[in-house]
C-alpha cells in the first residue's frame, strides 16, 4: 500500500467532517442563541448538504477502517472506536427525535432575532455535546488501540 493512502483518506474524511459539523453545529449554535440575526429556515435548508457530507465521512471512514487497524473495533477491543460508534448512533437517535417530534418544523418558523423553544435548545445542546464526544473518541483511536 502506498504511504499516502491513509493521509489522503484522512484528509477527505476531515474535509467532509468540516462540512457536516459546520452545518449541523451552526444550526445547533443558532438554536442556542448564537448569531441570532440568522433566520433558521434558510439555515436548515443546508441539511441536504450535511447529509452529502455525512455520506462522504461514512465512505472515507469505511475505507480507513479497511487500511488502518486503529480504526476498527479490534480485537483487542478499541474502547475509543466502540465509544465513537455509540456516540454516532446517539447522534442519529437525537436527529430522528428532532424530525419525528416536529421540532424541525417548529424551528423552521424561527425568524431573525427570534428565540427557540426550550426543547429545541436541549436537542441542540445534546447534539453539540455528542459531536464533541465523537471528535474526542476519534482523536483517541490511535492512543487507545490495543489498550485492552
Amino acid at each position, binding site marked *: 500500500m502506498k*504511504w*499516502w493512502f491513509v493521509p489522503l483518506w484522512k484528509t477527505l474524511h476531515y474535509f467532509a467532517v468540516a462540512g457536516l459539523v459546520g452545518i449541523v453545529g*451552526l444550526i445547533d449554535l443558532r438554536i442556542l442563541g448564537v448569531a441570532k440575526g440568522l433566520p433558521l*429556515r434558510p439555515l436548515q435548508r*443546508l441539511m441536504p448538504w450535511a447529509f452529502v457530507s455525512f455520506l462522504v465521512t461514512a465512505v472515507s471512514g469505511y475505507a480507513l477502517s479497511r487500511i488502518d487497524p486503529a480504526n476498527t473495533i479490534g480485537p483487542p477491543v478499541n474502547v475509543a472506536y466502540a465509544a465513537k460508534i455509540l456516540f454516532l448512533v446517539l447522534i442519529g437517535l437525537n436527529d430522528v427525535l428532532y424530525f419525528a417530534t416536529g421540532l424541525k418544523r417548529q424551528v423552521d418558523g424561527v425568524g431573525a432575532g427570534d428565540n427557540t423553544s426550550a426543547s429545541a435548545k436541549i436537542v441542540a445542546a445534546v447534539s453539540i455535546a455528542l459531536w464533541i464526544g465523537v471528535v474526542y473518541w*476519534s482523536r483517541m483511536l490511535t492512543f487507545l488501540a490495543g489498550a485492552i
Partner: protein
Amino acid sequence: MHIVDILQQWSENSAFFTWLRESPSIWAYPMVFFIHTLALVFTDSASVVIDARLLGAVRRLPISPLSKLFKVIWIGVTLTVVSGLVMLGTDVQTKVMNRLFPVKMLFVLAAIVLTAVLRNQIASTGVESSASPLARVLAAASLVCWCGAIASGKFAAYL
C-alpha cells in the same frame, strides 16, 4: 547554535514538556492533541459555512449576522495555535524539520490573515444578499488555505 537546537535543548530540559512527551496517560499528549483537533473543527466548520454562503450557497441566508461567527473562529484559532505550539514543544526538531512543516505554516498564516480581511470586508460593507466579487475571492482563497493547512498537517504525520 541553530535556533531549532536551542529550542530542542530547552524542551528536553523542561519538566513540563518531558512529562508531556513521555507520559503514557491519555490526559497528557492525547488531551492536547484533542484540544487542537476540536478547536480546529470549530474554526473550519464556521469558516466553511461562511465561505460557502459568500460563494453563493443559500442566498436567502442574510450575510451580515454571519459576522458573529468570527468570535467562534477566533476562539478556535487561538486554542489551535496554543495547543499546536505545546505539541511542537514536545519534539521541536522532528516537527520543525518535517518537509511539510513550512507548507503547513504558510497555509495557516495565509488562512488567518484571509479570515481577518474577510471579517472586515463583511463588517464594513454590511452585505445582505450577495457578496462582492472581492469577498468571493477572499472566501475561495480562505477555503483553499484551510484545506491546504489540513492536508499538509495530515500528510506531515506520515512523512
